[in-house]
């Protein structure tokens, strides 16, 4: 009569058999804290929101009979008289990737119990995120004031360009802004020692959200700016 031999009660069995055991055994299915699982489920739902936005963009771009404005030219910048296509977007991409890197390291140091480095790296992540939002505000201003792009039309071609651009980048920018606030709040609580004894899963959960924001940008960069 040994219950210990029931291998399905731990989470070590690999592959399909392991997945069946995780679902079928008398235990919690997912090997993680509930907060982390709920963040994953939230991110899955957010994936659907952004996918529907991008699919909608694909649909109106396919069906537009007016020429689609060339994003390479629309988002070009003149720096000291040199014409550089997509420069600001490239910088924004690198800033967001860097913030993802610092976030990943923050999660690592949090699990090691190095509070000081965690707080510094999380703050740096939030700062880079804020820089991203600032550059996006600059980009929007330039587009609205100088290029005359509106959600209902623009001088360069298909009217759908403006509506999809403002909707998709606006929703993404809102996610970045929310992420900056989220990071700031959690970093402050880490600094105060709020999670001592509770464990530092919260930093990984915050990280999941932040990496997701970076992930969405990878798709927006490819489909809106490069396509």
């Amino acid at each position, binding site marked *: 009569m040994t219950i210990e031999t029931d291998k399905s009660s731990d989470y070590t069995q690999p592959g399909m058999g392991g997945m069946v055991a995780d679902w079928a055994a008398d235990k919690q299915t997912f090997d993680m804290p509930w907060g982390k699982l709920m963040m994953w489920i939230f991110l899955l739902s957010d994936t*659907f929101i952004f996918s529907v936005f991008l699919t909608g963009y694909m649909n109106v771009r396919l069906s537009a009979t007016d020429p689609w404005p060339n994003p*390479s030219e629309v988002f070009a910048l003149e720096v000291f008289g040199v014409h550089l296509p997509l420069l600001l977007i490239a910088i924004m991409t*690198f800033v967001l990737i860097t913030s993802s890197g610092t976030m990943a390291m923050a999660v690592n140091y949090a699990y090691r119990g190095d509070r000081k480095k965690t707080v510094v790296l999380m703050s740096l992540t939030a700062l880079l995120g804020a820089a991203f939002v600032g550059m996006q505000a600059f980009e929007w201003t330039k587009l609205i004031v100088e290029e005359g792009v509106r959600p209902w039309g623009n001088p360069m071609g298909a009217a759908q360009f403006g509506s999809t651009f403002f909707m998709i980048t606006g929703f993404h920018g809102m996610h970045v802004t929310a992420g900056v606030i989220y990071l700031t709040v959690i970093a402050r609580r880490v600094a105060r020692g709020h999670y001592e004894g509770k464990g530092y899963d919260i930093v990984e959960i915050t990280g999941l959200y932040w*990496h997701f924001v970076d992930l969405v940008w990878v798709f927006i960069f490819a489909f809106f700016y*490069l396509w």
Partner: protein
Amino acid sequence: MSDTAGQQHPIGIYLKVWLLLFVFSTLSYLVDWYQLQGYLRWSLILLFMFIKAGFIVAIFMHLSWERLALKYVLGLPILAICLLILMMSIEGDYTYLTRHIFFDR
């Protein structure tokens, strides 16, 4: 709760992925810089996009170290999105053609 207290990996792996993301972002930027067009442009954009997305999800979000149960919960619903993309691209082409036929422009 076997490895939830962990997700302990050497810092080096994050720096390497960071570097790779930089490289692939630069490559996708160069696609635009050299004004590659047509199927070459589209396939390169998609290739670099999926490589970058894969690195972020697998390493930064630690999905490659998670149980298969979670991978399937996240992966299977994506098939519905693929179906939506397929249907909407057919629909988009159809709308485009009907606009040409009925509005002659």
